[in-house]
């Protein structure tokens, strides 16, 4: 009898405490390096919500999005919070698996003005559902090795006036220092395809889903032509991004410049080439262009179990200034939250960039960047165009021919 009584008492106690605390496990699916930012913010989150445990599912970048696609397809097996990269947000927005944050109980309309404007447009579907909150953005930037440019006697401001002076400067750098201008000629295309978009244009499609790629499109024609010029002049190191050679080139200073998102600075200083501290500077893109280079969002799947808590988590990550700054300092995830962009940190110099006040420069660039229209066939077009560009650079294929071949292939696929 005694035993049973004790047992009953204990279980009653256990049950009541469990009730009082309401332990919740929140599943968050993300990819590197976002997972590192989340980990950095979890201590602050746990202070506010001691009963909510964050279960972080991090997979390789492409694997993560593939897994999310499958889960959304079937409407099950979904996390409570899903990180979505900018390359996928357009596709995911057109699907039906994510919560419309415009609606109650989220009523996210009130938060939209808090963010860098174009991010809101990107997370909005064609039928005006708002499916994800922006957490970081990637203002496009031009990184250069000050020491190499100085040695060659090249002025970075005149160099970035237009593309012709960029290439001319590259020839001087090559002759005087032996360093390559850029890792790969394809990088030129990378910038040019992203900049100087007309209103209503995306990179590959316009807002009415018309394909822009083709031999008659000035932007693509020029991007291909200049890329080829750089290759033919022997100015690029023919090194692919995210390769061991790339990291090595940064460490050894065999490549003088690089176009990328502002976040690359974080990667450079954290792990790619920490020893080059102080040697780098940044500038805006050539010809007064502004471009978007990366960005991340958080969404709530409609089939999520803990939507209320998921929403709290997302708000904590995206609308809380200190969370945004934590992520920024952890790995350079540039805050999408406007108030975070007014933090004191933006007026401080960046030690890695020789105390240059680069963050203010990026903030300025972010505010001037126009929204880019995203299309669900962007990934299809991206692969096809880049393959054709390789044919031009490596096998001397005619540029107009390459562009019209690319156009034909994309048209078939974009149904």
């Amino acid at each position: 009898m005694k035993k049973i009584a004790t047992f009953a008492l204990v279980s009653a106690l256990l049950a009541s405490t469990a009730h009082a605390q309401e332990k919740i496990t929140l599943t968050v699916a993300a990819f590197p390096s976002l997972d590192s930012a989340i980990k950095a913010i979890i201590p602050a989150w746990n202070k506010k919500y001691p009963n909510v445990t964050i279960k972080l599912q991090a997979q390789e970048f492409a694997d993560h999005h593939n897994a999310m696609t499958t889960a959304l397809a079937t409407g099950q097996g979904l996390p409570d919070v899903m990180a979505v990269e900018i390359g996928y947000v357009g596709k995911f927005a057109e699907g039906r698996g994510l919560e419309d944050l415009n609606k109650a109980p989220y009523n996210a309309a009130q938060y939209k003005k808090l963010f860098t404007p174009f991010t809101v447009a990107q997370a909005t579907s064609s039928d005006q559902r708002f499916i994800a909150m922006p957490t970081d953005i990637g203002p496009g930037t031009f990184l250069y090795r000050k020491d190499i440019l100085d040695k060659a006697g090249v002025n970075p401001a005149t160099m970035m006036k237009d593309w012709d002076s960029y290439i001319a400067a590259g020839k001087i750098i090559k002759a005087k220092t032996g360093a390559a201008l850029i890792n790969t000629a394809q990088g030129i295309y990378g910038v040019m395809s992203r900049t100087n978009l007309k209103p209503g244009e995306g990179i590959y499609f316009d807002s009415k889903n018309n394909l822009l790629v083709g031999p008659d499109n000035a932007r693509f024609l020029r991007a291909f032509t200049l890329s080829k010029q750089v290759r033919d002049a022997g100015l690029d190191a023919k090194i692919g991004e995210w390769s061991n050679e790339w990291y090595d080139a940064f460490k050894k200073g065999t490549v003088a410049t690089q176009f990328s998102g502002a976040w690359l600075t974080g990667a450079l200083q954290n792990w790619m080439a920490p020893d080059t501290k102080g040697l780098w500077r940044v500038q805006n893109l050539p010809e007064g262009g502004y471009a978007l280079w990366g960005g991340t969002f958080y969404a709530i799947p409609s089939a999520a179990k803990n939507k209320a808590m998921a929403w709290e988590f997302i708000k904590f990550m995206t609308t809380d200034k200190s969370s945004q700054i934590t992520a920024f300092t952890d790995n350079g995830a540039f805050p999408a939250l406007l108030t975070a962009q007014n933090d004191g940190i933006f007026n401080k110099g960046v030690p890695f960039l020789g105390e240059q006040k680069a963050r203010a420069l990026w903030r300025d660039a972010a505010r001037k960047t126009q929204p880019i229209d995203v299309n669900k066939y962007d990934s299809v077009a991206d692969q096809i165009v880049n393959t054709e560009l390789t044919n031009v650079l490596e096998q001397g294929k005619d540029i107009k021919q390459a562009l019209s071949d690319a156009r034909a292939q994309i048209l078939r696929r974009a149904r």
Partner: protein
Amino acid sequence: MQECVPLPTSPPRRRWSYDRFQQRFAPYIFTSPFFILFLIFGLFPLGFSLFLAFHLWNPLDGLGNWRYVGWENFQLALGAPDQFWVSLKNTVWIGLLSGVPQHLVALPLAFVINQALRRYQGAISTILFLPYITNAVAITIVFGMLYSENLGLLNYALSVVGLGPVRWLAVPDLVPVSVAVVVFWRYVGWNVILYLSGLQAISEDVYEAATVDGASNVQKFFYITLPLLRPMMFYAFTLTIVGNMQLFEEPFIMTGQGGGSGGTALTSAMHIYNVAFRDLDMGYSSAMAWLLFLAIFVLSMINNYLFSRGGGRS
């Protein structure tokens, strides 16, 4: 293990009918797990993918939100400038680059081991078989490091001889070669083992007789070994064809989703995977998967035909 002791006998009449029952149904029960599993994990998926091949479906629209498009997905894949053709060409090319040398090396290697080095056959075949059992992800990482342009061992070795550097994973024409080397490396040993077992089935007497007739080793290889090895060659060729046509992990991990510089290592399996999971076009992807199946089937049949036709002559 002599434990086949008779069970304690029960009343004969009941026993007899139960025996009949269990003898009759035992084979069905014993083989049923396969069919039950196939019903659950095989039949539905197959039917569903065939269904999808005739529909336009973005998986993000959820189940049920698909549109019937007839043969459009197949027409799309087979139309002239489509990437499916390119991927099929890449697949066949990598398949040939890795498959042909595989057999050209494995066959003589097995012959030599069988003829002259029999005493060490166990140790040798174990060593040669090792690459086959390794993890593709792990070994592809190692090969990726060997291919590294400025830092890899391969280019270092070349530079010692005054050559290079070769851009193994950057020149479009070289990428398939680099991938094929990994595939070749992984499967040579496997083929050696297959051929060795085939060779061991050939009677010693045949060789003895040939020796008496004064045949050289080269003659023996071409006039005895090759013809008698045909069944095993057919088996090994078929496995190579089926495996190479579905090549996925090696190029996927080595060159990334896009198939490397110029997309020259984009195999059909990778393309099908990309179209499904990256481009979210399930119908087109399913159609291509079935076309690939058809291509594999046709190639197997051609292989079969070549072997049976040649078989009549020998």
